[in-house]
């Protein structure tokens, strides 16, 4: 239509000024970052040994699967949806992985099968939500019961995993300097980077935000709302499948009781990370911070030593309240 690259941008001055003005939409993420620094500070001041970098790395090691699942959840919540099935799909994946390995399937086949299964369940729910106009809450609730139930069809007991590849991966420690991480952490970080890239730099990613902002407008702007919706649930399913694989590394077993309530942890991490439940606003970085908050709470309670682990839940609950209130304040002021 016109030759754009030869034209000089008309307002370079405003463009430069812009960067120094903090945007209100970054406020929730900033708040989470501040909270983390505060919690970390409290930990370092009160407990000896807390300042060891390995403590932070351990949080990633212990929550790599949650991080992957929460990234998938971020896509769904950005469109204004919700996915309750993730915990159950994670559990089902561990079961299927354990069963197939027990029957002597090679890891090179088991891995893709696990990922494919997760994506397929997500795809199914996405199609249901889009074509039959079912509430995401209900569709994924059905998916949750289905997946959790299927676990017990496979076995009511825990199935141990002793495949050599699996054992090797789960025991691997990647050392650098005096610290180490697990392979799962690498996988999780890769997922985070890919997701952040997709959301910020691909048309699909921007469609996700548009759909979350105003689905009707997005449709009238000619965006493929249905395709985007189905895709985010498929991505969430894929992430759940991958999360299940990581959990099977971590637990070295498949069990129907694995990851119970994980969907709620994932949602909590996403919300604490500053993503609006109404959709359209949030970042994968926020979700990483959200998972870190959950991990830090656990770590602090472990260091404290005399608190029951239920205090984790109490603090998560409190933080959720605070962040949801914060979100309301931000969105209301923006209006």
């Amino acid at each position, binding site marked *: 239509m016109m030759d754009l690259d030869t*034209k000089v941008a008309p307002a370079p001055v405003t463009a430069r000024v812009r960067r120094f003005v903090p945007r209100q939409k970054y406020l929730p993420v900033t708040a989470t970052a501040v909270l983390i620094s505060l919690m970390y500070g409290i930990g370092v001041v009160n407990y000896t040994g807390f300042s060891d970098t390995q403590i932070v790395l351990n949080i990633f090691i212990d929550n790599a699967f949650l991080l992957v699942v929460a990234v998938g959840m971020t896509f769904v919540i950005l469109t204004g949806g919700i996915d309750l099935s993730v915990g159950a799909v994670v559990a089902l994946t561990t079961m299927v992985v354990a069963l197939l390995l027990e029957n002597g399937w090679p890891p090179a086949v088991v891995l893709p099968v696990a990922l494919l299964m997760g994506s397929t369940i997500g795809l199914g729910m996405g199609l249901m939500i889009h074509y039959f106009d079912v509430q995401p809450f209900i569709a994924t609730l059905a998916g949750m019961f289905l997946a959790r139930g299927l676990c017990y069809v496979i076995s009511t007991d825990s199935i141990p995993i002793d495949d050599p590849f699996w054992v090797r991966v789960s025991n691997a420690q990647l050392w650098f300097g005096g610290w180490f991480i697990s392979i799962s952490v690498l996988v999780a970080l890769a997922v985070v980077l890919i997701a952040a890239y997709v959301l910020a730099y691909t*048309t699909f990613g921007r469609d996700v*935000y548009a759909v*979350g*902002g*105003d689905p009707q407008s997005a449709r*009238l702007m000619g*965006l493929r709302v249905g395709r985007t919706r189905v895709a985010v649930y498929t991505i969430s399913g894929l992430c759940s499948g991958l999360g299940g694989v990581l959990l099977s590394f971590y637990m070295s077993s498949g069990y129907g009781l694995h990851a119970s309530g994980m969907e709620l942890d994932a949602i909590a991490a996403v919300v604490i990370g500053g993503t609006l439940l109404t959709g*359209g606003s949030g970042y994968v970085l926020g979700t990483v911070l959200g998972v870190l908050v959950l991990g830090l709470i656990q770590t602090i309670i472990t260091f404290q030593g005399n608190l029951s682990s239920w205090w984790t839940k109490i603090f998560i609950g409190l933080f959720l309240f605070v962040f949801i209130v914060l979100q309301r304040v931000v969105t209301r002021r*923006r209006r």
Partner: protein
Amino acid sequence: MSETEPVLVMRGIGKRFPGVVALDGVDLRLFPGEVHALMGENGAGKSTLIKVLTGAYHHDQGDITLGGEQVAFAGPHQAQQAGISTVYQEINLCPNLSVAENVLIGRSPTRFGRIRWSAMRRRAEDLLARLHLSIDVGSDLGTHSIAVQQMVAIARALDVDAKVLVLDEPTSSLDASEVDQLFRVMRGLKDEGIAILFVTHFLDQVYEIADRMTVLRNGRLVGEFRTAELSQLDLVAAMIGKELAALEDIEEAPRREVAALERGTPIVSAETLGRTGAIAPFSLAIHKGEVVGLAGLLGSGRTEIARLLFGADRADQGRLRVDGAPVAFRGPQSAMRHRIAYCPENRRTDGLVEDLTVRENIILAMQAARGWARPVPRGRQDELVARYVKALDIRPADPELPVRNLSGGNQQKVLLARWLITEPKLMILDEPTRGIDVGAKAEIQRLVVELSDGGMAVLFISAELEEVLRLSHKVAVLRDRRLVAELENTDGLDTDRVMAAIASGGAA
């Protein structure tokens, strides 16, 4: 305009919704390089026709040919691909995305699947520059005024290599200079050979810009006319299809007599009431049976005053009295208890519940006032609703239809009915006639007169000064979120003086 081949032909288009025939055998022809006005009252089927054209709805009958080929759009995306771009009446953009994205999303510049943000910003800035708008394209759309958002929507439509540009009420939220700007752009596009379908309720604008027009009434085609060959009066007659008596009544109605009004204790009086960042402290008294008009440009603080008086926002300065007694509203609930009603400006998002029926929407406020523990008996509901549907001439007159199936003007009437049922002492009407047609406008104006004659106080907010002057006993003039003048509506007052007051900040 040359009588070449039409770029677009719609023939015999029919569309029905549950319980409503929205379109019945409608034809439309668009030629390249013309501005074609689509005219009709609310509910005449303009919006439906446009949605069929742009693929948002599927038509039940008829066919569409674009550039000589028959087309059937599965959705807006395909219509856009085919070269039909649309700016809708209700701004359909995503407030959570940046201005640049709103202009370009769906066709963002990419390289190897990666969005080139800098190219995107530059292109958005260029497109907005064509509309003489220079704003930070990286800012969120939601932070800008409705007028700016409208311009962004138009910039978006311009970016597509459009053969047909549909502008559905683009001017209803623009001020005069913005309208001129838009018309300049439209003329430029026309010269480029684009066919523009233009929908508006402002007849003057039609005569200023349109070459031809198609008139609809009640979902049927009235005819296709050349603008130069149809007088305004004939056009209005064609649109409403009845004698113009009703219209002329209101046009010729004598100016409201200020003297006839006895002013005792005001029903509502604000004393240096204000809210930081929204409106500077103002004093305003509204008496029984008085219509107070608020005049001022978009964003001058009209709606802010309304929201303070209704308790939707909380004042942080000054005092509010109702019937002489000081009150502090904690929310709309308390205002409603004092029998203050508010019809908001944006009926789609702030007022109506689209999925509920006409009856349910009308009963809503009354029910809220009674409290949920005491449901309004169904018999009484039906009786009340039937009365107001009749009194306000809500069409179609079926109280069990979902409100979303009604046209804009009829939705506005439903909103009015909702508040009238509660028998308020003060009715705040924020742009009640925006985006609705002459006939419905006259009806609503007549209603305001009747209500105030019956003793109700009305705060009337409108961008159209003529309307404000015609109805009000007193005009409060706003500028830059400050009440700058209060003018008695006596013989000497005309739009020029009000405009002078706006322009000079009240020194006139």
